[in-house]
């Protein structure tokens, strides 16, 4: 193996088509997850995302059994789920989180039971749970690119509405905007991100890619624009670094990417200049020293 500073170290792997595809996939999914993850974090939809990815699993299994595009099938189910969550959210009698939790854990179980009808069960289960970015099909790559464009356009056009509803739903209502509609749009975007990313990092770990870069960015920025930008840089670079590490060390790609993301978040949480743990500890220590003993 050549040295770290030799360009060939990075270029040689890219001579293989599967690595080229994987690199494009990782960049696209990183951009998408950072963009939508920012709004998921700001609107407090992490739990809804967790529930949704369980349900999407059923869609993946079903389309696998029926022999369709995994991404296409998952997308259909995800949109259905987004609608269902919107409806459940309005049933105030049952706690929203309870209802969502029960329903979607059950749907995940259904997915695993269904998977037993496939002959090659266990290996495919691993693929679905952990992702298989090295085997991504050109069609799915194109679909992913399409989803990224759609998300960019929707968020670009309705930026102020999405921000307003996330920050102050009461004012949004008073201005005559339907919070249900804008939350619904965000749920659809969330569904798109979860579905698109599951082939890269797998169903189990997709939420990390959605939340970690956005949360990292929130620790480092003061406005939403920069937050999205930093989240994108974190997500894309974690994806690329994770991809290369997994190629060189021959470890699963999805988990490696998520590990890199998690490490970046952990380091930021410790060292962030304003909101970091170390900064806070230092502040308290200085404060305690400045208070004279009683």
């Amino acid at each position, binding site marked *: 193996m050549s040295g770290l500073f030799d360009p060939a170290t990075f270029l040689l792997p890219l001579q293989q088509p599967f690595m080229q595809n994987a690199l494009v996939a990782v960049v696209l999914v990183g951009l998408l997850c950072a963009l939508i993850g920012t709004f998921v974090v*700001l609107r407090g939809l992490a739990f809804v995302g967790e529930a949704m990815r369980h349900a999407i699993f059923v869609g993946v299994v079903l389309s696998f059994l029926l022999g369709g595009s995994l991404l296409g099938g998952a997308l259909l189910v995800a949109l259905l789920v987004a609608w269902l969550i919107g409806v459940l959210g309005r049933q*105030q*009698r049952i706690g929203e989180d309870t209802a969502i939790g029960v329903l979607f854990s059950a749907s995940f179980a259904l997915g695993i039971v269904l998977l037993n009808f496939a002959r090659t069960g266990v290996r495919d289960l691993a693929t679905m749970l952990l992702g298989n970015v090295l085997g991504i099909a050109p069609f799915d790559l194109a679909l992913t690119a399409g989803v990224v464009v759609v998300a960019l356009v929707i968020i670009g*056009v*309705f930026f*102020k*509405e999405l*921000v*307003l509803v*996330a*920050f*102050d739903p*009461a*004012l949004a*209502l*008073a*201005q*005559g905007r339907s919070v249900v509609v804008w939350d619904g749009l965000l749920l659809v975007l969330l569904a798109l991100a979860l579905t698109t990313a599951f082939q890269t990092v797998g169903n189990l770990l997709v939420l990390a890619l959605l939340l970690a870069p956005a949360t990292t960015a*929130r620790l480092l*920025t*003061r*406005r*939403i624009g*920069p*937050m999205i930008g930093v989240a994108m840089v974190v997500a894309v670079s974690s994806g690329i670094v994770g991809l290369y590490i997994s190629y060189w060390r021959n470890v699963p790609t999805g988990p490696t990417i998520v590990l890199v993301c998690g490490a970046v978040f952990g380091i930021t949480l410790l060292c962030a200049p304003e909101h970091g743990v170390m900064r806070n500890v230092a502040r308290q220590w200085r404060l305690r020293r400045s208070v004279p003993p009683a």
Partner: protein
Amino acid sequence: MSTAATASAPNHTQPAVSVEHITVAYGAQVVIDDVSLTLPPAQIIGLIGPNGAGKTTLLKAIVGAQRVLKGQVRVLGQPINAVRQRVAYVPQRGDVDWSFPLSVLDVVLMGRYGRLGLWRRPGSHDRELALHALEQVRLVKRRSCQIGELSGGQQQRVFLARALVQEADLLLLDEPFNGIDTTTQSVIFDLLCAQRRLGRTVFLSTHDLHSVEQNCDQLVAFNRRVVAFGPVDQVFTGPVLHSTFGSNVAVVGEHQTLVIRQ
């Protein structure tokens, strides 16, 4: 104020708000019970009542952010949907997450969103208005701060600035004096009086009885229904306060009130 404000000067003959027999319930729990209320224009009107009296719900029902089970709400003589841009609403400060990555100016600009509609973004005219409003609340120097860096009183003033840029004829404020400093309180009341001089109506909820006694023209004593409504000296009496606040209030002397528990 700008010429747009004078052009849309409110009509002084019709009530600012007229609520007829409205009932609001969360599930099976009735929070507002068959309430009727007519607020005159160009006045500062206080809404007082204990916690859980339904003050927030009443404000939300007026502004159309809360569904009404029964009854009718008319604002500035029309259904709320026809006059939304002429109504500014200031939610309770505690209702939003102040660590949100927005600058002070970003938040004030949100007051313009109603007029901008779905497709337009805030332009230079909106920014000018926002900066002017920030000047009025004495926060123009802090326009680029992240909103979490402000004190509670400053945050409340940002919310007021956001309502001012809307150039509305009716301002509804929910607990604007909750946990703020006296400077902020006098800045807010000065600005509200200026709004009144422009012929605009202010309706604000509070449980700080001292501030409303001095600064409001009329009071609504409210506890799921209207206990009393009229000029301050008529509402601010022992019997009214007792039936509004129940045993939580003790009245000492003729006009001295002591609220023991909220």
